[in-house]
């Protein structure tokens, strides 16, 4: 397995990072957007959100549509600076793009003009790794996600599930310590999706990265995560409650849904989520 990717990263494990510091700490984060149309009111997507992702933990964020889940991820990724509040990554204040994080986007994010293998090697090249070394690392990762035979294909020649797997390899080849995922599998059919979820769990178990996984699917959240956090209906969203998922690992996402404990947890969390969904609906209607 490739390990040398971390060697080219400018800041991988800063020596002064506190041992045991959480992977990610969002403190009282508020994000407001000033609309382009003059006279319109400023929109506050999230307000006073506090959230901690421990090192090696798998946390799922669940909430009704429009609750600012993606905004929260963008703040964690450093793509969006919070209006108020602070973000800490392994104990260090974050400024600019979060170099420890890999981000899996909801829409297709592959470079259409690069074939599958080129796409996987992109991040390594950006980080200054020589081409040959980058491709030597990228190739096993492409095989790892089952696409070794499709290296020369361009994204438009791959199916949706294959594109997601390339995106996964593109992110994982950099061995990020934090993985941010924005409904990465929502566009896939159920079977492909469960395969991908199991693959994700297997890779996570091996690497022990910290994962922040956004989804609107409560079942997916419970099946994958150590902890599920419910976000309030937007605007001015923030986490309203959370629950530890004490299901045993390793899990199979398809089978675990039949587990009695899973059903009990689902019922418990659904009560909270339902309230927020109702609020969101009422706001959308009104």
């Amino acid at each position, binding site marked *: 397995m490739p390990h040398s990717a971390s060697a080219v990263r400018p800041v991988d494990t800063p020596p002064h990072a506190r041992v045991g510091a959480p992977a990610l700490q969002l403190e009282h984060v508020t994000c407001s957007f000033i609309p382009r149309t003059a006279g319109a009111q400023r929109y506050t997507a999230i307000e006073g959100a506090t959230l901690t992702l421990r090192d090696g933990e798998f946390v799922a964020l669940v909430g009704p549509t429009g609750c600012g889940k993606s905004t929260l991820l963008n703040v964690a*990724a450093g793509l969006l600076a919070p209006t108020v509040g602070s973000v800490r990554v392994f104990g260090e204040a974050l400024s600019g793009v979060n170099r420890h994080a890999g981000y899996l986007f909801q829409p297709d994010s592959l470079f259409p003009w690069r074939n599958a293998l080129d796409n996987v090697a992109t991040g390594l090249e950006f980080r200054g790794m020589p081409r040959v070394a980058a491709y030597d690392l990228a190739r096993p990762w492409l095989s790892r996600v089952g696409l070794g035979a499709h290296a020369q294909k*361009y994204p*438009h020649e791959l199916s949706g599930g294959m594109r997601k797997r390339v995106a996964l390899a*593109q992110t994982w080849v950099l061995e990020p310590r934090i993985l941010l995922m924005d409904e990465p599998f929502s566009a896939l059919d159920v079977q492909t999706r469960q395969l991908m979820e199991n693959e994700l769990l297997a890779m996570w178990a091996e690497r022990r990265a910290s994962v922040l996984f956004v989804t609107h699917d409560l079942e997916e959240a419970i099946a994958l995560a150590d902890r599920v956090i419910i976000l309030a209906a937007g605007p001015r969203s923030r986490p309203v409650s959370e629950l530890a998922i004490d299901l045993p690992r390793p899990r199979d996402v398809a089978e675990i849904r039949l587990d009695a404990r899973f059903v009990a947890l689902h019922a418990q969390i659904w009560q909270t989520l339902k309230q927020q969904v109702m609020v969101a609906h009422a706001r959308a209607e009104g």
Partner: protein
Amino acid sequence: MPELKAEAELAADHPRAMWPWHLALLGALFLAWYGLTRAEVLSPFFFGEPLLVVQRLIDWFVSGKIFEHLAVTLFETLAAFAIGTAAGLVVGLWLALTPFASRLLEPYIIAVNSMPRVILAPIFAVWFGLGMKSKIVLGFTLVFFIVFFSVYHGVKEVSTVLLDNARMLGAGRRQLLRHVYLPSATAWVFSSLHASVGMAFVGAVVGEYLGSTHGVGYLILQAEGVFDINSVLAGVLILTICAIALDRMVTVVERRLLRWRPRLAGQDH
């Protein structure tokens, strides 16, 4: 994706099935032209005669008279095309990525673009002389704006997800330019090249027509001076064939460079 492939093959088969019809239509038009001028329904003096036009073309090629003129026109066209495209690409990228300059210059760009620039030809002739330079400059002003606008608007529409992804993967400003903006821009440039290769021709020929000593435009002007309509039409015919050839060349290069792009059924003509 077997269905998609089948569709692409269908599209590829399409032109092969159509070209005899294209030729038949062309033949019919020539025949109608021939018949109407022969029967003097249309005056041969004003509308020419197809056989004489072909005769004139053969004369030009046999005597070799056409080659120096054609070479001049083609050189002007290609130079205007190449310089205009390169400048449009660079300036379009730069301006789209420099918000202040873009907002400062926007009204001027719109003004220059809406101006009927062909009318500048006499001025260019005064500035750059009657040689090739003034024609290249005229073609340049026509090509530049087509490419410039398609790149300029294209950059503003580059996918934010791609940009975010590139940044998360560690791209700096220069890498964003090289690996995201430039490849996207290539696609937009090609969409405008078909229009601009025609405009490069317009620049060269109109420039020659308004004042020159060489070129197909000059030949046409000479013929017009003596009401030799057949030579005028022969010149037009040569220009048309050259324009089609250049357009096909753009298509060939486009297919090679944009291999990564899905080929749509309608695109493959």
